[in-house]
C-alpha cells in the first residue's frame, strides 16, 4: 500500500471515528461559523474580510434547542459574523470576529466576539496528510445567545487532496472557561467537508457539522445536533469568493433547515514579518 493510500485510509478512519463517537454522544455547533477550515492559511500580509451569514428557515420555537445555546429561540434567527483574518507569517494567521443576530420578535443584537490563531504545520506534501491547528477564544452575550460567558475552542486540522477532490476534517474540542459549564470538561464536535474542484466560478461540496456535548457525559443521540450541507462555492469577478447552501438537520435536536451564505474578499496590506524559512515547520 503506498503512502497516499495509507493517508486516505487514515483520514477515513479519523472521519469514521468522529462519526462513531458522535453517534454515541451530544452537540457543539457554532451557528455563526458554518465554515470548514482547510490546511492553507492566509498569505503573509494579506487581510481577508469575510461575512458569515446563516438563517434558520425551520428551527425550534424555544431557547436552548437546535442551534440556540441561549434563551432566544432559533426559529427565524438570522446570524451574521464579520471576520477579519490577517496572515502573520507564511504559516500562521490571526482573526477577530464580531457576531450579531437578528432575532425573531426581538430585533438586532450584538451576540459576541471571537479571536483566534490558526496555523499549518510543515510545507505542502511534506507529510502524506496536511496538518494544521486552530485555537480560539469566544465571548458570548449571555444568557440570550449562550449560557457560557467565555469558551476556549481547539481544533486539529487534517486535509488530504486526491486530484480535484479535497477532504478536510476539523475535530473540535471546546471548554467553557467562565459562566455556565466552567466546572465541566471539554465538549466534542466536528466540522468536515469534501470539495470537488470543477470550475473556478462554481464547484460542488458537501459539509458536515455536529457535536456530541460533553466528552465524559454525552447527550442522547436525539438531543445531539448533526447537519449536512450540500454547498456550491467558487470565485466571482473582482476576487469575491462565496460558499452557500442549505443545511439539513439529521436529528430531533437539530434545527431542521438552515441556509448559509458566506462571502469573502482578500487584499494585501503589508507584511509584519519576513518569509518563513523552508526548514521551519511551525512559524
Amino acid at each position, binding site marked *: 500500500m503506498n*503512502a497516499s493510500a*495509507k*493517508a486516505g485510509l*487514515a483520514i477515513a*478512519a*479519523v472521519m469514521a*471515528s468522529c462519526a462513531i*463517537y458522535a453517534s*454515541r*454522544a451530544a452537540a457543539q455547533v457554532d451557528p455563526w461559523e458554518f465554515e470548514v477550515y482547510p490546511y*492553507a492559511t492566509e*498569505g*503573509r*500580509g*494579506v487581510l481577508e474580510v469575510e461575512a458569515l451569514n446563516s438563517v434558520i428557515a425551520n428551527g425550534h420555537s424555544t431557547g436552548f434547542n437546535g442551534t440556540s445555546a441561549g434563551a432566544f429561540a432559533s426559529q427565524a434567527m438570522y446570524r451574521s459574523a464579520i471576520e477579519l483574518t490577517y*496572515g502573520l507569517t*507564511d504559516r500562521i494567521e490571526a482573526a477577530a470576529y464580531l457576531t450579531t443576530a437578528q432575532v425573531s420578535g426581538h430585533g438586532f443584537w450584538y451576540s459576541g466576539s471571537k479571536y483566534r490563531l490558526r496555523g499549518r504545520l510543515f*510545507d*505542502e*506534501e*511534506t*507529510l*502524506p*496528510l496536511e*496538518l494544521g491547528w486552530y485555537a480560539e477564544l469566544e465571548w458570548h452575550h449571555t444568557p440570550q445567545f449562550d449560557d457560557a460567558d467565555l469558551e476556549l475552542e481547539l481544533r*486539529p486540522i*487534517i486535509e488530504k*487532496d486526491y*486530484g*480535484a477532490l*479535497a477532504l478536510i476534517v476539523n*475535530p473540535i474540542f471546546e471548554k467553557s472557561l467562565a459562566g455556565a459549564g466552567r466546572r465541566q470538561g471539554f465538549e*466534542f464536535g466536528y466540522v468536515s467537508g469534501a470539495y470537488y*474542484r470543477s470550475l*473556478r466560478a462554481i464547484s460542488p461540496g458537501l459539509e458536515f457539522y455536529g457535536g456530541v456535548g460533553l*466528552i*465524559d*457525559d*454525552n447527550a442522547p443521540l436525539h438531543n445531539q445536533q448533526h447537519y449536512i450541507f450540500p454547498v456550491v462555492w467558487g*470565485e466571482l*469577478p*473582482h*476576487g469575491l469568493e462565496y460558499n452557500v447552501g442549505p443545511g439539513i438537520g439529521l436529528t430531533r435536536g437539530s434545527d431542521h433547515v438552515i441556509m448559509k451564505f458566506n462571502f469573502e474578499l*482578500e*487584499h*494585501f496590506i503589508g*507584511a509584519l514579518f519576513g*518569509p518563513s524559512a*523552508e526548514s521551519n515547520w511551525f512559524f
Partner: protein
Amino acid sequence: MFGGFEIKAVDFENHSQFHLRLMTLKFKLFIFAAGASLLAIGALPASAADATYEIRFQDYHFVPQTLAVTAGQPLIIKVANSSNETIEFESFKLNREKAVTPGETAMVHLPALGAGRYDFYDDFHQDIPEGSIVAK
C-alpha cells in the same frame, strides 16, 4: 481466591459513575486511535527528490506563460517575484495559493500530477493573463 488469583469486585458507587468512567475510557481510546493514526502517517517518508521548476513574475506577466513538467513526479515550483508589487500565485485546480512579496522567491510544493493542463494566475491582479502548467 480462584486458581491462585484473587478476584476483586469492582465497587462503583452507582451506575452513573460507572457510565461516566466508561465514556471517559472510550474517549481516551478514541483520542489514542486518532493520534496513533496521525503519528503513523507522520512517520511515513516524504516524497523522494522532487523536480524543481521556476516561474518568474515580471512586467505584469508570468515567464514562462506555459510551464511543461513531467507527469507522475512530485515537483517544486519556485515562484520568483521580480516586480514591484506583491502577487498571490494561485492555482485553482492544484489547490495552491501563496503571497509573494517583491524580490522574494516562494516554493510551491506539488504532488505527482496526472497528464493534463493546470491553471495558475495572480489573484491580486486578475487582469493579468493566466498561465498553465502542462504535465506530460
